[in-house]
Structure formats: structure tokens, C-alpha cells
């Protein structure tokens, strides 16, 4: 029995769960317009995993980095959710720049169906 896989799976589930939280907080306190900075930070963490001293540290850094890059992709969607009233908006939100959505994003022409890449 090798427990590395299950351990890394549990860790990634934990990191993804935390991702839900920090994406909401980041949109609230900072604003989704900073998503490129977050993506850059995530890519930096991914790159740093290349030079880690051992396998476990490298794996942990890689999982965290990949999850942060995903969170950066998710930030504009979180901004849409706030605009639709599903989440609280920060009181000073009007004074900060926003990614202007024209009518919200959809997943393709058919209802409910998107391309395999449309998230």
C-alpha cells in the first residue's frame, strides 16, 4: 500500500476548499480586477515547486500553485456573482475598478451546455 496518492488527494481537497474561501474574501476586500496579479503569484509558486528539495515539498507547492492559478481564473466569475446579488458587495466597491461584464458570461449557444473548455 502506498499512501502518497491519498495524502496528496486529501491535501488538494483541503486546498480547493480553502480556494472557495479566499476567492470570496479576495473579491470582497481587494477586487477581482487584480486577478492577473493572483495568476502571476500562482505561476510563481508553480515555478518555485521545480526547485524544492524533495518530492513532498515540491508536490505541496505545485498543488497550491495550481489551485491559486485556478482561483485567479475564478475571480471574474466571483465578481459576476456579487453583481447578481449572490454574495455581499464591499461598501467601497463602487470606487474601485471593475472588469466590465456585458450581460454576464454564458456557456455557449445551447442552454446549459458549454464547450469542454468553457468554465
Amino acid at each position, binding site marked *: 500500500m502506498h499512501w502518497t*496518492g491519498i495524502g496528496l*488527494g486529501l491535501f*488538494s481537497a483541503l486546498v480547493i476548499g480553502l480556494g472557495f474561501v479566499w476567492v470570496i474574501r479576495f473579491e470582497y476586500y481587494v477586487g477581482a480586477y487584480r486577478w492577473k496579479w493572483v495568476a502571476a503569484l500562482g505561476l510563481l509558486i508553480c515555478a518555485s515547486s521545480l526547485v*524544492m528539495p524533495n518530492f513532498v515539498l515540491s508536490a505541496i507547492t505545485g*498543488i497550491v500553485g495550481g489551485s491559486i492559478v485556478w482561483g485567479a481564473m475564478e475571480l471574474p466569475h466571483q465578481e459576476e456573482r456579487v453583481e447578481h446579488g449572490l454574495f455581499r458587495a464591499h461598501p467601497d466597491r463602487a470606487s474601485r475598478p471593475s472588469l466590465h461584464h456585458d450581460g454576464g458570461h454564458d456557456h455557449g449557444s445551447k442552454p446549459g451546455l458549454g464547450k469542454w473548455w468553457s468554465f
Partner: protein
Amino acid sequence: MPGGIDLQWAGPVFAVVTFLTIWWGHILVRIVHYHLGTRPAPVIFLGGLLLLLGSTQTGNDILGGTCGIVGLTLLWDAFELFRQEARVRQGHAPLNPRVHRAAAGLAAARFADEHPEADEGGTCLSCGSTPNSRFLCRRGPYCQVRHWERYATPQAVEVETGER
């Protein structure tokens, strides 16, 4: 290696695996729930368990880690189907009326609440319910069968073609 540093390729590999798994997990949940509802949840859960089992059986760390990440994400996605069901019932995700019966009923009830003028009273020709017992009608609060003439098939129009 320059400087004598051994590069750990496991990290970037797991980063890509994590990113792709979250991405396609979203799409899996959306498309599976649209076509099949929450019914496949046990199958997805079992698939995740099988991948986790597989990850314990391989000595390759990168393969085992990949199976672990994908497997645990699949376990998560099985539960995510039910959260997607809640989103559909709230009207935040696409509704497939042939699959999401409960959500369609809720949407119809919301629609009927927003348009009270649509129920003008009278007896339902389908079930005999009156405005007071309209909730008994199996077609729901928006039952319009008493306006059956709206749903009548259009009469075949006799066309005078003349003789050739």
C-alpha cells in the same frame, strides 16, 4: 543540472493536474447534472473511490499522486451534483425541464406567483379544481387546461388547389 540542483518535476505536474481537474470537474458537474440530474452521483463517487484505491496500488509517486488528486476531486464532484441541483432550484443554473422535475415545478410556481392575473378563476377542465383547490391540480398552479382552446391543434386548412 546547472549549479547541481535536481529539478523536482513533480510539483509542476501536480500543478497542471490540479488545475485541469478543478476545471473539468466544473464542466463535468454542469453537463452531467444538465442531462442526468443527481442520479449519477453514486457512480461518480465510486469512480473516485476506485481511483483512490488505484493510487494505493502503484509505486510511482507521480502516478499515485495524480490518481489521488483526481479521485478525491471526483468524490467532491459527487456531492457537488447536489449543490448544482440547489443552484438550479434557485434559478442560478440552467434548467432542463425533462430531467429536473422538482426544479421545474418550483420555477412554474414562481412564475404563477409573479403572474396572478393568469389565474382568472373558474373550474379546471383537467381535474375539476377551483381557485381555492387549484393546488390539487396535478399540472400545478399554472394549469391552463380550462383554456383548452389555446392548445387545440390548428385545424387543417382546406386548400383549394384547383385542377391541373
